[in-house]
């Protein structure tokens, strides 16, 4: 492998009003390497990558591509140097066709001359080219003219990747590309990445998932507080060291293994069905129990949760709480019956980003704070300050706009919202997705405490260590059915994963 540097950044800084997001960072990428970028939320990874992708026109410092200094002030400029980025949140235009999304900004034109600039779009070529790109990510069965709004979310994520690959990049930036993907898709993605690497394409890979990083990366760079801490070869670093560098001090253990006492049955679900989403789901959960729901993305876990809390309607089956059958038609009723649901989409469904911390935390308990028709948010102040302290939400200012908080603190606010409502059954859907390790620990401890206090927790998580560590029992869902129940003793990351893939005993 030629050891030449394709991308080099020296003394790069980027300031936001009031803060330095990237502070004097040196960073380089070799030809044909997979370079992982690690750091907690708010460490500056995404900002650094956005600089490379040309999202900012006011960064300082120098960027060299193949040894030549360049300005990356617009996305099109970056693209012209062969830099492509796959974003964490889907950046697709929903009403438009797959083809137009994949070929955004480089639609093939009809032209008499070869490579000449034509006026009209060459539709045949467009379809052909899109098929080629889709094939790379295994989506060749999709019609390129289908609008994005008609395909599923994880297909959307793959389209996003196809879009970036189709541009024949020389540097590919991937910002948490696996968060919405199933295990098979992740495997396929890693194969694609290795192929690209072999073709001499450099990949910058951002992930919170340490096993993934150790699986694919060649080198690892750690950022903290906007500063670069170190760049190491994969072989030279252990997982513990990496974590230490990321959070600045050592942690002894990720998860505690508390043992929950088993009490009477709180939630009993019998033959619950939503046509086309999940069929004949039955299970029971006890007081003080953390019941894990394992499975691949798209197995029907979130859909089950949505029906349990009344966001979607059910087609058949019954739900009982404390032995009494409940019929829940909307989330307000669910809350009154004692079921709360922490959604996996923090930014769109979880939080009102433009409102402040206090308003968000109290959003679910407005009826309780209303007495004789008068709502007084001050009544919630006690709960509010208790939760802010308990979850170490920073800054502890109830008037702070949630949009200006870091991802970890946003997630804590979301959890606080549901802790405030004191639910009998709390459904947590990916409670730590995209969250830094510090926040993750606090959230885990809160979950354990809630269980100890007698709440029933339904934990949906794709983070296997988390699922295994926190759950008393794990139900495995696959393609809309519960296929297995695993007791704590038989749960390991491996066994759960195998079960979720329909393998193992």
């Amino acid at each position: 492998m030629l050891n030449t540097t394709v991308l080099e950044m020296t003394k790069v800084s980027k300031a936001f009003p009031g803060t330095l997001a990237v502070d004097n960072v040196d960073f380089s990428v070799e030809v044909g390497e997979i370079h992982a970028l690690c750091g907690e939320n708010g460490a500056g990874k995404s900002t650094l990558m956005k600089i490379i992708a040309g999202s900012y026109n006011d960064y300082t410092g120098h960027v060299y591509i193949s040894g030549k200094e360049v300005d990356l002030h617009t996305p099109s400029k970056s693209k012209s140097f062969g830099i492509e980025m796959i974003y964490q949140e889907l950046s697709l235009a929903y009403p438009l066709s797959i083809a137009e999304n994949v070929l955004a900004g480089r639609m093939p034109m009809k032209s008499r001359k070869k490579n000449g600039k034509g006026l009209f779009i060459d539709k045949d070529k467009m379809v052909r080219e899109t098929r080629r790109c889709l094939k790379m990510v295994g989506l060749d069965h999709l019609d390129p003219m289908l609008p994005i709004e008609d395909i599923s979310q994880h297909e959307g994520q793959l389209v996003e990747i196809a879009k970036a690959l189709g541009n024949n990049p020389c540097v590919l930036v991937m910002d948490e590309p696996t968060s919405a993907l199933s295990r098979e898709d992740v495997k396929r993605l890693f194969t694609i990445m290795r192929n690209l690497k072999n073709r001499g394409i450099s990949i910058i890979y951002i992930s919170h998932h340490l096993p993934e990083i150790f699986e694919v990366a060649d080198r690892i760079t750690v950022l903290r507080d906007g500063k670069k801490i170190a760049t190491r070869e994969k072989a030279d670093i252990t997982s513990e060291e990496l974590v230490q560098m990321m959070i600045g001090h050592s942690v002894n253990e990720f998860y505690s293994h508390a043992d929950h006492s088993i009490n009477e049955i709180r939630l009993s679900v019998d033959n619950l069905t939503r046509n086309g989403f999940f069929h004949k789901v039955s299970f029971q959960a006890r007081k003080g129990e953390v019941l894990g729901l394992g499975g691949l993305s798209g197995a029907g876990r979130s859909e089950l949760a949505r029906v349990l809390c009344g966001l979607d309607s059910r087609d058949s089956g019954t739900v009982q709480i404390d032995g009494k059958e409940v019929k829940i038609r909307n989330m307000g009723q669910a809350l009154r019956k004692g079921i709360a649901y922490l959604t996996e989409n923090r930014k769109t469904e979880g939080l009102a980003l433009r409102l402040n911390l206090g308003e968000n935390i109290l959003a679910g308990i407005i009826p309780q704070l209303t007495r004789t028709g008068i709502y007084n948010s001050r009544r919630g102040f006690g709960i509010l300050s208790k939760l802010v302290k308990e979850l170490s939400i920073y800054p502890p200012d109830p008037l702070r706009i949630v949009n200006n908080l870091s991802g970890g603190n946003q997630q804590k606010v979301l959890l606080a919202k549901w802790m405030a409502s004191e639910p009998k059954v709390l459904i947590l859907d990916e409670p730590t997705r995209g969250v830094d390790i510090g926040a993750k620990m606090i959230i885990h401890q809160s979950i354990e405490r809630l269980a100890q206090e007698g709440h029933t927790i339904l934990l949906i998580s794709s983070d296997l260590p988390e699922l295994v560590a926190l759950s008393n029992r794990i139900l495995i869902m696959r393609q809309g059915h519960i296929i297995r129940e695993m007791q704590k003793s038989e749960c390991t990351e491996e066994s759960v994963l195998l079960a979720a893939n329909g393998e193992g005993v």
Partner: protein
Amino acid sequence: MRKLQIKDKQQLISTIDKNRIFILFGVIFLFMALFAPRFMNVFNLTTIMRTMSLNATVAIGFTLILVIGQLDLSIGTIITFAAVVGLGLKESVGFGLSVPLAVAAGGVVGLINGILVAKAKINSFIVTLGMMTVLQGTIYTITGGNSISLSTPDAFAISDWLAEMFFPLLTPRVLITIILVILASFGMRRTRIGRNFYMVGGNSQTAWLAGIDTDRYTIAAFVISGLTAAVGGILFAMESAAATLNMGNSSLMYVISATIIGGTSMAGGKGGVFKTFVAVLTLEVLYNGIILFGLGNEVKIFLAGVILAAVILYEAYTSYRREKVLGQRPELMKELERDREAAAASSS
């Protein structure tokens, strides 16, 4: 076999849905052709075309505005503004210069709108609402409250020429409109620039990341909206040989209704110029028929409202339905069907 049928049915529904404006047009046209007195003759149909010309021209730009997900409430006053500028300057510089100036004036207003929306990032509803007030004041000020008429032989000559039927259904003004519609429709569908407008409206973040200068496209859309409104206005004024101070006022609500009925969504990224054009024609045929039946404006307003409401409700209801089934797993639906069949078999 069974699966195929379901697919065909869905396809049929989606095809009908996509082409509903053509069907609506067909139904209304047929009804009028069969029942409205004096509807089916060259003269009346040409009259419809002539009346449609103004709003169809204006609707081109407005469709573009909706496609990029914005709103332009100032088109009505831009029509008047262009008419006033074009006819007001004719005395001093002649049509050769005043007409381009009028069109340019519309473009400049659109440019200001666009810059305020794209660069100053003010909501387009607010910008264009303010612009509407500003322009109305400007129109009154530059005219001193006086409508403008051109009663010179050359002005009459141009007016007659614009209004004269040279081919069944076509007058030069109608032809200009149709050419603009075809150009815009083709451009929006078949060129990269056109598709980029859809991209900006569908998801401006994506568009920007794909290297599309969204600000420039937003500004361009407002400029085009200003230009088409101005072209519509000045042609209308030239054919009328006069510019009144509120000649464009009724166009705003008309064009909004027609564009929506034509299937362009307020959310952006969807719709098309040709469909809007057919929607304008549909409304025009409907209104013409209502007059021919001897019915009053109250019927016209009521029917327009009902059609608009029905279209909006239908659209809202479909997306409401779609949301309900979004993410359904086909294999589970198959399983359900198997179960049902099994149940049916066992019971019989």
